């Protein structure tokens, strides 16, 4: 395995779009060549070396290449976009669109993530150890089908529209979510261990949502089917008792999804 270490050196007054930062692009290149790859800042294309110091050469292939970003890159967008293999480790927070449309490999973010991480992803994994914002693992705007495979794990909280249009794969959130988690999903699994503020599973036509905490505002279009305990979806275990609902009956589409809501935390439902 070859490690390429990128250390942010500055000039982030305006945000940078760095879709070149993927193991696929770094493989087979020397540190010097990597530094010459171009990134966007506003309408200008500038070499990566203007923003990062580069240490280490890329591996022979994407699988053999690990990129370590040693610092905060919350103003750098599109890291790991379209990656197919290899690994990216970010020792800080990341900007928007991290790992969007990725199909393989692994991204680990030790800090927080901005919106749109893992948009339309088809495979691989993203692990965000901090908090995340909106549209994580969701569909491109206007599209009905979003993420189709892979796994996103968020240890902290996320905000709105998590997993919108999810068709496959799993999203696991350790903390809480706010609005429209799992909107329009038609497949896959979303497991929120904490609370959800409102509109969970809005307009869902398939797939599964599990809420371990409390839903403050439950949607009117869901019907209770029964109680199940200790759920298991492949390797994902959801301990405890859950009320099982189907919905969303607010929309006329035929397919309906399943929502499990913790019994202990939602006595009033």
């Amino acid at each position, binding site marked *: 395995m070859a490690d390429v270490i990128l250390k942010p050196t500055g000039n982030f007054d305006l945000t940078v779009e760095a879709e070149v930062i993927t193991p696929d692009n770094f493989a087979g290149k020397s540190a010097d060549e990597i530094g010459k790859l171009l990134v966007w800042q506003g309408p200008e294309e500038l070499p990566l070396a203007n923003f990062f110091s580069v240490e280490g050469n890329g591996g022979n292939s994407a699988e053999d290449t690990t990129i370590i970003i040693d610092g905060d890159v919350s103003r750098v967008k599109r890291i790991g976009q379209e990656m197919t293999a290899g690994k990216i480790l970010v020792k800080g927070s990341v900007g928007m669109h991290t790992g969007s449309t990725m199909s393989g490999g692994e991204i680990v973010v030790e800090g927080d993530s901005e919106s749109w991480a893992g948009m339309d992803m088809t495979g691989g994994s993203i692990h965000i150890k901090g908090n995340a*914002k*909106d549209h994580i693992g969701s569909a491109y705007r206007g599209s009905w089908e979003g993420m189709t495979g892979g796994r996103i794990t968020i240890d902290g909280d996320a905000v*709105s*529209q998590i997993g919108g249009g999810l068709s496959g794969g799993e999203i696991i959130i350790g903390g809480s979510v706010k609005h429209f988690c799992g909107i329009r999903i038609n497949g896959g699994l979303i497991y929120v261990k904490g609370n959800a503020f409102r509109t969970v599973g809005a307009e869902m036509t398939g797939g599964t949502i599990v809420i371990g905490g409390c839903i403050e505002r439950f949607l009117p279009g869901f019907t209770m089917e029964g109680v199940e305990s200790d759920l298991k979806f492949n390797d994902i275990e959801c301990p405890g008792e859950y009320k099982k609902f189907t919905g969303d009956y607010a929309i006329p589409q035929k397919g309906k999804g399943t929502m499990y809501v913790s019994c202990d935390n939602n006595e009033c439902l």
Partner: protein
Amino acid sequence: MEALLNTGSTIDEGRLAKGGSKYTDDYTKECAVCWMCAEDFTSLGCPEKVAVISRDRKYSVALSTKVTEAMRSGQVFIPRSIWANVVVEPDTFSTGSPRYKGSPVFVEPTDDVILSAEELVTKMYMGGK
């Protein structure tokens, strides 16, 4: 007091804004006003002026009070204007549009001076320039 802030147009706000009168006393009198119900007004101690403070307590704006039956308890209204937007939450939930309706705010009695639109922009936004 914690409250949900609603902002929106009033006919005189529209008349003064469209008539280019944003730097007049009339505009300040129409817009630098916090509407609330009698119950909330009483619980605040019937203040002449209140400070409306953003949820993160970063921004605060002094306004006169207006008691009206149009409001329910726990809800306040400020006519759409520079004063209201000082405390509107800037987060847009990835839609581009801030929370003009339903921003959580704090409302407290105050003796601060009510700034005019011009004073507000020079003191608060331009750093006294």
